[in-house]
Each structure stands twice: as C-alpha cells, then as structure tokens.
C-alpha cells in the first residue's frame, strides 16, 4: 500500500517536473524571427557607405542654397537666412551613419579586420568633420553608449577635428596593413560589398588623404594653418578624376537628386538652379562667353528665351516657370543614374592652387588651376576644343592668376557639393576681398541678421528637448545663425 502510494507520488512529481521543465522551453519563442542579432562585416559596410552618400546629399541640399548654387522655389524661408536646424541630416548622421559606423568599428576591432576598420574610420572622419562644419560643437566622445548615457556632452570643434585627423591617420594605417584578418581581397569577398571602391585599399587611402587636405584647408584663416601639410595630403590623394569618390545609382535605388525632380513635378516644389550660379555660367557676371558647361549642367533645351538663361533668384518667393531653369533628368547631376560626388580630384587641385597663390607661387598655382579646370570639364563631358576655347576666354595666365580666378572656377566645380559653403564662408562671402564677385544677400533676407551672411545652422529641436542642458552649454553666448564656427572666426 505504502509502496504504491510512494510510487504514485513519485510519478506525479516526475510528471510535474516534466511539465515545469518543458514549460521553460515551451516559452522560449522570443527570438526575433525577422531581425538579426549578430552583424557581419560586409553587410554593415554596405550600409555605412549607403548612409554616407545619403549624408552627402542631405548636407548638400541646404549648403548649396546658402552658396546660391540652388534656391528654393516654394518660398522657403531657409534661403532668406531664417532659422534652419537641418534635423533630418542630424538624425541621419547620428542614428544612421555614425551609429552603424560604431557597430562596424566594434566588430572589426573584435575580429582584427584592419581593412574594414580603416574604411570605417575614414568614413567616420569624413562626415563627423562635415557635421562640425555645419553645427560647430557637436557630441561624439560620449555618444553611442546606449542606456548608460542618455545625454552626451558636446565636444568642441577643435576636439572634433583632432579626432577627425586621428581617425584619418589611423584609418590610413589600417588600410595599409598587410597582416590582417578578413583583408579586403580574400576568397570570400568579391569586393561587391564596397559599393564605392570595390574593396580597393589604395582608393580608400587616397580618399582619406583627400579629406585630410580638405579639413586642413578649412583653417586657412587661422594661425595654425600649415600649407605644407595640406600639399602633402594632396599629393597622396587622387591622381585623376577617374579616382573620384562617386556613387552611381540604378533605377531601383535612384539618385536622391533625381528625387528633387520628382518632387518638383508633383507639386511638392523643392529647389532649382539659383540665379547667381546661372549668371556665372552664362558669362554675365564676368562678361565672358557662355560656359560650355551650362548646357550640360542645366538643361537649356527647355527654355528658348533668345539664348538668355536665368536661375531662380535666391530668397524670392514663388517660382517663375517662364524664366527659371528647372532641374530635368537631362542635367548631368540629376538623371536617375547621376553620380553623387563625395570627393573629387578637381577639388584637390583647386585647394593646391589656392595654397600656392597664398604662398606667392603663381606658376604652380596656375598649373594646379588648369589641372583642376580641365578635370572638371572633362568629367562633365565637355569637348576638348570647347575646353581650350574656354580657357582662352578666361584670360587667366600663370602671371595674372588671382585668388578670385581660383575661387570662381572652384565655385563652378563645386556645384552640388556642400564644401562650397565652407569655401564661401572662409572668404566671407566675398565681403572685403575680391572673390565671389557680385554675390549679394538673398531677397527679403532675415532682418534680424543685420546684413550679415549665415555662418552655421542651429541645433535641432529634438536635441534641445532631450539633451537641453548640454545644448545650452554648447550654444554659449551670442548663439545664432551668424555665430561663426571655430575655423571661421
């Protein structure tokens, strides 16, 4: 009797135990069915490059309006120097690009994959620095710590630039390493993950030097500027425009610049060519012949107008479709498959020319200037004959070349590149010097700026609301659209 009872009890307990333990595994269904928890080097890299190109677009979209390359046709007050926070660019930078780069750097460090680490560091430097050129002091060292730090402090621009140079240098080192795991070219990788340079270490190294040159050059007005460093960097960067950092799209993933055309066509009016840029190209500002690039950059077949072409005047309200040149997909920069240019050989040579003139070396400057000019025109597909005719028409020689000539040609080549805004700020929008002839304030400009040109964009509202103390500390005194960033002071 007792035995049966004991057996029964044991049986019951075993059954209960069985039920309880299977309970654990029964409930183990919480792994996400559609998302991964373990990343991989190649797929993260593709995402980082994709986000970097998108960042390039988002920064350029606004920067080129301040340089009057483009202007809004919907009466947007941004062009009139009213409040601009560029919150989309800010969030794309932090929660998109830098966050994925952080993941890539951690993974690459863990796996000792130096090439991937180097690539990540280069991209990281490029856009961290670019962001600082727009907003000044920005958070970085305290970011990406998850729920350990909800309110990262702001690093100063000087600190950001130090980190940028460090990242570029370390990145170049890493890309050069021959003893590494998961090197770019290995049996498993066919390079297609690298949608920019197809896993070509050399190309990335050159691009890194190019960004270094660009960033060093921003400090041209300050005492820390070192011309030799800039020249060294330029020497190590691209050797022709075929090495430019360009992304090309396809008809599934189309160029974001093409998206502007679609917006314009469906009534969500966006931007088009600004009048200052067109006046440069059609020769009016400098009283020259029409630039052969005009027909390539802008689709001049659409408007007749007796050969007179204009753009939309910056700051003016509604568009005038009778006279304003609009983007079409016949424009070199705006087709579905058009390139998104992140860094060019042409820019390098223009920087070299600028540095050489300021050093008093006009001969070298002129050679660099011609190289830059030809590269840009060839890239755009201008015939050699037209190139030569244009050069003659400019009447610039190695004896009379001035900074104005260099910056004028650079201005044209920097269409759809945010760097143009850095240039124009360095030269104070032409105020008090000979550059940017006839460049004027936009129509109906924000009176609160008292005739000053815009020098930065403001911190986004989301940051002010969620990280308010640090933002207030970073803003400091006299914060506003005309407060210059550190290299602009």
């Amino acid at each position, binding site marked *: 009797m007792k035995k049966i009872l004991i057996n029964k009890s044991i049986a019951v307990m075993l059954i209960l135990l069985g039920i309880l333990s299977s309970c654990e595994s029964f409930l183990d*269904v919480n792994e996400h069915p559609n*998302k991964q928890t373990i990343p991989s080097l190649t797929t993260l890299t593709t995402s980082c490059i994709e986000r970097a190109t998108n960042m390039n677009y988002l920064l350029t979209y606004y920067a080129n309006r301040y340089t009057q390359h483009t202007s809004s046709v919907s009466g947007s007050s941004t062009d009139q120097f009213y409040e601009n926070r560029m919150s989309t660019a800010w969030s794309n930078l932090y929660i998109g690009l830098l966050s*994925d780069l952080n*993941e890539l750097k951690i993974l690459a460090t863990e796996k000792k994959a130096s090439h991937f680490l180097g690539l990540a560091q280069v991209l990281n430097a490029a856009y961290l620095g670019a962001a600082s050129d727009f907003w000044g002091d920005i958070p970085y060292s305290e970011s990406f710590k998850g729920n350990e730090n909800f309110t990262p402090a702001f690093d100063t621009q000087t600190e950001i630039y130090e980190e940028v140079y460090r990242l570029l240098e370390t990145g170049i080192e890493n890309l050069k390493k021959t003893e590494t795991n998961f090197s770019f070219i290995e049996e498993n990788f066919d390079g297609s993950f690298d949608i920019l340079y197809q896993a070509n270490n050399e190309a990335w190294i050159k691009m890194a030097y190019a960004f270094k040159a660009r960033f060093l050059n921003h400090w041209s007005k300050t005492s820390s500027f070192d011309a030799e460093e800039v020249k060294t960097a330029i020497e190590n960067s691209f050797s022709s425009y075929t090495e430019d950092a360009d992304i090309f799209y396809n008809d599934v993933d189309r160029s974001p610049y093409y998206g502007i055309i*679609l917006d314009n066509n469906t009534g969500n009016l966006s931007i088009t060519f600004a009048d200052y840029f067109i006046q440069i190209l059609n020769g009016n500002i400098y009283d020259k012949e029409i630039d052969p690039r005009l027909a390539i950059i802008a689709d001049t077949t659409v408007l007749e107008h007796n050969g007179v072409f204009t753009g939309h005047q910056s700051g003016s309200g509604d568009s005038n479709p009778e006279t304003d040149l609009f983007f079409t997909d016949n424009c070199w920069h705006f087709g579905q498959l058009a390139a998104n240019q992140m860094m060019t050989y042409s820019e390098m040579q223009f920087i070299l020319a600028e540095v050489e003139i300021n050093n008093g070396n006009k001969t070298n400057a002129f050679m660099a200037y011609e190289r830059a000019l030809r590269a840009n025109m060839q890239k755009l597909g201008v015939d050699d004959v037209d190139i030569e005719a244009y050069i003659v028409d400019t009447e610039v020689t190695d004896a009379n070349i001035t900074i104005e000539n260099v910056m004028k040609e650079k201005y044209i080549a920097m269409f759809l590149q945010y760097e143009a805004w850095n240039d124009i700020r360095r030269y104070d929008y032409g105020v008090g010097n000979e550059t940017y002839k006839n460049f004027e304030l936009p129509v109906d400009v924000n009176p609160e700026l008292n005739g000053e040109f815009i020098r930065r964009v403001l911190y986004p509202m989301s940051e002010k609301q969620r990280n308010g103390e640090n933002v207030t500390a970073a803003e400091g005194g006299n914060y506003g659209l005309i407060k210059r960033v550190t290299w602009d002071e």
Partner: protein
Amino acid sequence: MRKFLLIVTLLIFSMQMFAQIEINGKVTTDDGDTFPGITVSIEGKTATAVVTDDEGNYSIVVNSESDVLVFEYVGFQTQMQTVGTQTVINVILVVESILLDDVVITALGIKREKKALGYAVQEISGEDITSSGQADIIGAMQGKVSGVNITQAGGAGASTRIVIRGANSLDPGAENQPLFVVDGIPISNSTISGDLSPSAGSNATSTSEQFGFSNRAMDINPNDIESMSILKGAAATALYGARAANGAVIITTKSGKNGKTVINYNSKITIDEVVHFPEMQKTWERGRLSTTDLDSPPVAINETELPPYLYFEEFGYRRADVGAKFYNNMEDFFKQGISYNNSVSVSGGGEKGNYYLSASSLSQEGIVPNTTWGRKTVKLSGSRNVNDKLKTSASVTYTNSGGIRGNHGDKSYMSSMLYWSGSVDMSDYEDENGAHVTHPYIDNPYYLVNKTSLEDDVNRVLGYVNVSCNILENLVLSYRLGTDYYSDARTYIVPGAEVPGEQPLDLASQNGGYIVEERINFMETNSDLMLVYNVDITDDFKFSAVLGNNVLDSRYDRLNTRGENWASPNFYDISNTTNKYSSNSDIRKRMVGLYGNFRFEFKNYLFIGITGRNDFSSTLPTENNSYFYPAANLGFIFTEAFDLKSNILSYGKIRGSWANVAKDAPAHRLEKLYSAGTFLNTANLTLDNSLGNSNLKPEQTTSIETGIDLRFFANKLGIDFSWYKANTVDMLFPIPVANTTGYSTILENIGELENKGIELLITGKIIRKQNFNWEISVNYSENKTKVIELNDELEEIELSNGLGGVHQKLVVGGYYGDMYGYTYKKYLNEDGSESVIINEDGRPTIDGDTALYYGNSNPDWTCGITNTISYKGFTLSFLFETKQGQMMSNEHVRNLIRQGKHISTEYRPTASEGGIILEGVNLDENGENPVPNIYMIERYRHYYKFRVTSDADEMIEEASWIRLRTLSLTYSVPQKILSKTKLITAASFSFVGNNLWLSTEYRGFDPEISKYGAGSNSQAYSGYSTPNTRRLGFSINLTF
C-alpha cells in the same frame, strides 16, 4: 328513518361541498391593473388551471383547505397562497425582479448571479444587437453601454473602436482595446493596416491613415449572439490575466433549446446616405488674385492659359462676372450605399443535448463608388450529455469576409476632392481615349476610385471542443481547447499611365505604378483546464472555488511583396513589374497561466470573491518571466441583511473591489537588433534605431471600484452607480532620446497613468399595462485619464501629429488625448487682454515656438437614453446619444479654407471697397506702442493658405454632438394570426433608422468619423476618410 336519511344525505352533500370548494377572487398588479389570462392553478395539479377574465376575476374549485393556489403571469413574480378557510382570495402581483436573479456570464464563461458580483458588469442581449441597425457588434453597443468610448472610421467595412474606461498604456502604438471572448475562447479583434506604401511617392505617415480596414470582430454574425457581457474593470477580468487589462467583452452564442426544432430567418436591407457636408462658397472662381487685382475688370479664364497651380485654388474672380458655373462636386460624388443581410438558423435539442446551425450573408455597397464589403458565415455547434456525469460540446464557425476599400488619407479621393475646384465638373474624368482628365498635381477622385483597388479576402475559422465531467457531486473537471485562425489576403493595385501621355495617378508618379500583395496569417490556440468546486458548508454559508490552467500559443505572420513600375500596360499582376521588394514580419508568443478563484457566500446577502493568477510569458526575460497578481471583490445586499425592503426601496446592494492586473511586453523586444536590406543590388545591414531592453518588466494596473445598486417601487426603477480609479505603472514605452546617443528610442518601463470615472445606469419601467408598455434606460459615463508621471528624462511624449502644427502629447499633469497647437503672435495689453499682432502686409504671424493647450480629444461625458414603447404588437424604440466636451482638429475644413473653397473665405471685399482689415494691433520696430491695425490684407490667398491653415484656433474645435442614434419601429404579428398559419411561431417586421438627426457645432462632416482607423490610439482628427451616413433599413424576422 326519513330524518336519518335526510341528515345523512345532507352530511354527504355537505361533505361533497366541502371537498369542492369554490374559490373566487381578483388578481391585480401593484399598479391596480388587471390582466386577463393570468393563470391560477392548484399546486401540483396543473390540469386544474383556470385563467382570469378581462377584469382579473377568477374562479377555481379546490378540494381541501390545504391546497395551495399558484398565480403565474409572464413578467411577474409567481405568487402562492394556501386556501385555508377563505373562499375569496385576492392577490396582488409584483413585477418580476428579473435583474436580481439575472445570471450573467463572467470571466472564463463562469455564470454568476448578478447580485453576487462585487463589480460592475453590463449585459447586452442578442436582440439589442440585431435591432440596433448596425452590421457589426461594436457599433451595436453605441449609446447603450456606460464606461465605453466607441469611435468609427468611415466607409464600407471600416473599423469600429472601443475603449473601456480609458487608455492605460503610454506607448502610442500600444493596444488599449478590450479582449474579445467568444464562448470562452479569446479571439482576435485586431485591425491590421499592413504596409501598402510604395518606395517613393506617398506622404502618408502610416497605412492606418490610408485605408479603412476592418476590425476582426466584424467577422462575427450578430444574429448568432445570445448575449454580450461587458466586463469593465480589472476585478472582472482578473481571471483572464494580462490579455484583459483593458477590459473584456464576453460573447455567448446561441445554442439549441430543448423542445422542437426552431428555424429562424432574418432578412434586412439598409440604405446609407451622407447628409452632412461642409458648406462651400459659390461666389468666387478659380485663380490666385489679390484685392488689387479684383478691382480691375475680370479677365475670362481660358483653361489653356492657366498655369497648373491655378487650377484648384479659388481665389479668382466672381463667378457671376466671368460666367463660370458651379458644380457641386463633393455632394454629387457620394452615392447611396446599400446592404443586404440575410441570416437563417436551425436549432433544437432535448435531454440528450442540443444543436445550432446557422448561415448568413451580408453584402454591402459603399457610398463611395467601387467600394464594397461582404461577410458570409456558417456556424455549427452542439452539445451532448453523454451520461449524467459527462457532457461534451463543440462548435465551428467559418467566416469569409472582405471587400474593396477606398483610399483615405494622403493621396486619397477625399484629399483630391477637397482640392477640386467647383468650377470644373469632376465627374468628367476620362477623355475620349480614356485618359485621365484632372488638374496637374492631384487626381480626379472618380478616376482614382475606378482605377485603384484594395481588395481584402479573409477566411476565418473559430472552433472549440469542451468536455466537462462531474467527478464528484460538487466537483466538476472541464477542459476546453479552442482555436482562432484567419488568413487575410490583400491585393492593392495602383496602375501607371494606361493611355500614352496621360497624367498617371499621383501615387504612381514617382514609381511607375505598383502592386502590393500581402498575406497575413494568424492563429491562436487556447487550452483551459478547470476544476470547479461548490459546497454548502452550512445552510447560510456557501463556498465555491475554481482552479485552472491556461496555455496560450499565438503566431502571426505577414508576408509583403511589392512590385513597382509596370512593364506593359493594362496587365496588373506582380509578374509584370520591373522592381520587386519583399519583406516578412512574424510575431510569436506563448503564455502559461495558473489561476484560482474563491467565493464565499453568506446568507444570500454577503458575497466575497478572491482571485489570484500567475502568468509565465515568453516575451519577458527568462529569469524574470513570472508575475503574480491578485484581486478581491465584495458585494453586500443590505436590504436583505437589515431587512430594509419596503414599498419604496425593494433592493439595495453596495459593492467594492480591488484588483491588480499585469500586462506583459510585446514580443521580441529584449535584444539589440539589426535589419537587413539591399542597396544597389548589394546586401546591407543596419542597426535598428530603437534599442530593446533585456530587463523588461510587466506593466501593472491597480484598480479600485465601488458601486451601489438600488431598486425602487417594486423593481420598477433601478439605479446602478459605479466609481472607479485605476492606476497603471511601469508602462512600456520607447523613450525618444537625443539622436546623439545613436538611437532614436530606448524601450523602458516608465510612468504612471490614472483612469478615474463614474458610470451610471438608470432603468425604469414607467408604464406597464396589458397593451401598453414604456421602458426607459439611461446610461451616463465620465472618464479621465491623467498622466501622473512620465520619467526623469522625459517631459512629454508625442501621441500624434496632424496638419498645421496640431499635435497631441502626454505631459505630466495633463490628460491622455490632450491637444496642442500654435496660433498667432499676440500682444499682451495692459488690461490683461491679448491682441493679435498684425504686420504691414495686413497679416498676422504664427508663433511657432509656443505650443498652446486646446482641450482634449476624449469626451467629458457621454450619455445614451433609450425609450422603448410598445402598444399591442408595435414596439417603438429610440436611442438618443450624446458625447460632450471632446475637441477635434477639423482637417477637411482646413483644407477647404486653404483652397479658398470654404464658406468662411467668402467675404473678400476689394481694395476699393476697403478690403479686409483684421482686428489686431500694429507695433513699432521695438515691438511696443500698439495701435489698432490699419493695414489691409493684400492677398487673401496668402492669408488663408499660409496663416489660417497654421492657426490652431481655426482648426481645433469642439466636436460635441447629440444624435438620434437609432429609431426603430417593429411590428410583431400577434399569436392569433400566426396560429392560423400553423407554421410560423413568431414574425416581426421593423423599420430602423440610424443617425436620423444630428446636432453639432462642428463644421462640415459628422465629427464622429476619425481620420485613423480602430487600430490607432489617436482619434483627434477628422477629414480624409469616408464620411458618416444616415441609414434607413427594413427587416423581417420569421421563426418557424
């Protein structure tokens, strides 16, 4: 000898007389009424029954003094009287206290007498549902149930949303609707929007804005329902656990009754029409003029000369001056919607068991062309008493539902129609080649509804088996296994340009047209093993217990495939597209629960219930996935306990409860996740913006409820009042964090919400006579959801965003549903008043920095009054319903103002007539020295388009309404006529009208229709979805 015989005869005679006593009397009601047909019989000898005559008199012969007379009549309490020595027995009948002995279905299908409950439950009968005129069960509850807020999206097959006693989660994406249970099996009531956006070309923030999808409870055939119990507070739902933290709607379906087979047939036809439209101005033509232009002679508008942007704005010349006709495009667009609903059922039963078989078909054409919805159901259920200890039952219901949905939201027929100028005939939508005739930038709504289609096809099976076994006399073991399975196939086609050169649909302009095929599968299985024990410990003291185990398995997956850019024209299959995209979304969840419920009953007037439940959930971290929560309730019938019953107060009960319920986390949120995709034909992987949390805890709601239930005047008047307060803490919320952390949101348990409110239900049988009855039922409720706490880092949580800067957010000290917006910059005068600052162009500027509070989108109070009057065979019932105090952003009127089409833009005096000089002040360059405004508005267009449409004062308005929700007139054919047919046992015909009368200050369409469907927690915006209708219907009900 003769004397002896006489005495004996007399004795015998008198003995016989004594054995056959005739009793006479009169039966009246306590009102003094008399009814014929009241049955008087001798107890135990029903064959002796007689009935009262027209004056209530009766006469019956009894055999002895000890015989007991029984007086019975429907609707009244049966009375018994011993004959005794009386020969005249008059009796007064009292109305039956139906509500006292009423049995309601509570959680887990447990039947309880309503008097024994310590919390509020409200019941709706199946007949109330079918006579409401609504095709779905939630709509049928409108105006009848206290403590619930019901809102609708518009359009055929569009969803209806119900929230009981307020929202209790902070996350705007959280589910706040109650659990739906059918015959003990929880079923899905979700409204799934899916993902129907193309890769480029749509500005919609979410698909829920774009289509009116159905909530899944619409699959239920209302004719199958016997009754619905609405369990409102946590005390009522504690046994269901986490699923029912928002309350529960317990549905019991019909089953066969003992007796002969019953066949029931019901047929209904209804017609819907839009009767409330926004008022448009008819004076002004298309154009973009200013007051100075208006002073010049009008220039005839030639269509070919007009630049594209002038097409749909009406800031032009006077119609009269240029001879332009006015087309009433909006009103002409909506047609009459018609629906047919047929239902038949066969049921029967006996001692061995019963069965129920039904079939129904509903088909509906919407008021928007080319929109439909339909539902077909088949149900078979039955039970069998295997022996006196074992009983089994089972049921299977199959539903097929779906329709063709119209576009709402951005790029919908509504948004195009709000733009469309009254100067152009909208119905002329195709030219002789079939090409799209429209304005540039917008679609012709007729073309849109004819060319695009979103079709959904749902197949659903609900089934269960149930076995219960009386193990011992007081102990019942029962097991129920049920499944809810449905598949929802959606196909959405947006053609590109079909005729060469035509303007394609706006939606197709950036992608070449597209098709989306979505396949949703959902299956949930519940297993419940229960042990029920009842014992009478003493005569006065009873005890019952329920112990149970529940196992839940739920799986959901949605496969989405999209093809973009049509290759060849006019063939709309995914194979004919150039670019294909595909994604899959799965959710898996399992739960194990153990629960117990213990009840103590003392002397039929004191009832105490205690519940405890422990859940194990797969969605919480494994080391911490178990959580326990208790509840207790008490009911005390003080009229019984202290013997206080009187003619005035016939019943009185107080009740109170306390409960704690927990809600587990959504699935798959514990880890750091990466999402894969492709870019330029290369695989990419990106870190999710929202960070999960490996330390998630369940959300906890603690609620207390008290109430009082009183009956007066022999139960003719009933007053039931409840007060409740429920606090929810540790709510899961993806906290928006500074982007510079690398994340946009981080999931945490935070905050506290408090729901407080009252519910009042008054029922009265005002007149109860033989041929004339009048009953009234009033329900009244108030609920407020207060934000007590968020967390240290968060000052506010954004709930929703609308047009023109109007938004909703949750702030500490504010309420759920609070609305905010921006208005003009104002100058603070010395006397404290404010004046609008007007600039030199005659216009004010919007102060975009200061978000002002504009009230709450939830009503302050709601009330429904139902009157039911019956006279002979006719029953007239009407339900007035009101919601008061809610605010809404009137987006459709805003857009009409933006185009110069709304009546409020009509007044446009020219410059020479003095123009419009707005009331306000002009300031000097220091912003001081206000003087009354002297500047005239130069361009009306700029004022209306850019100022008024960003002014929350203009957009947010009170949306309170009173309406005649339902009016129905039913005729039940009397038995006299029916008995002649020898076949039909009941027949009735009824006319039903819904929304026959509406009174509201809200401009434009009926404010009851929300922009978002039932799946959204934001019901603060109107416009962009199909308008509400007035409905007329006729139905026949026959029982054989």
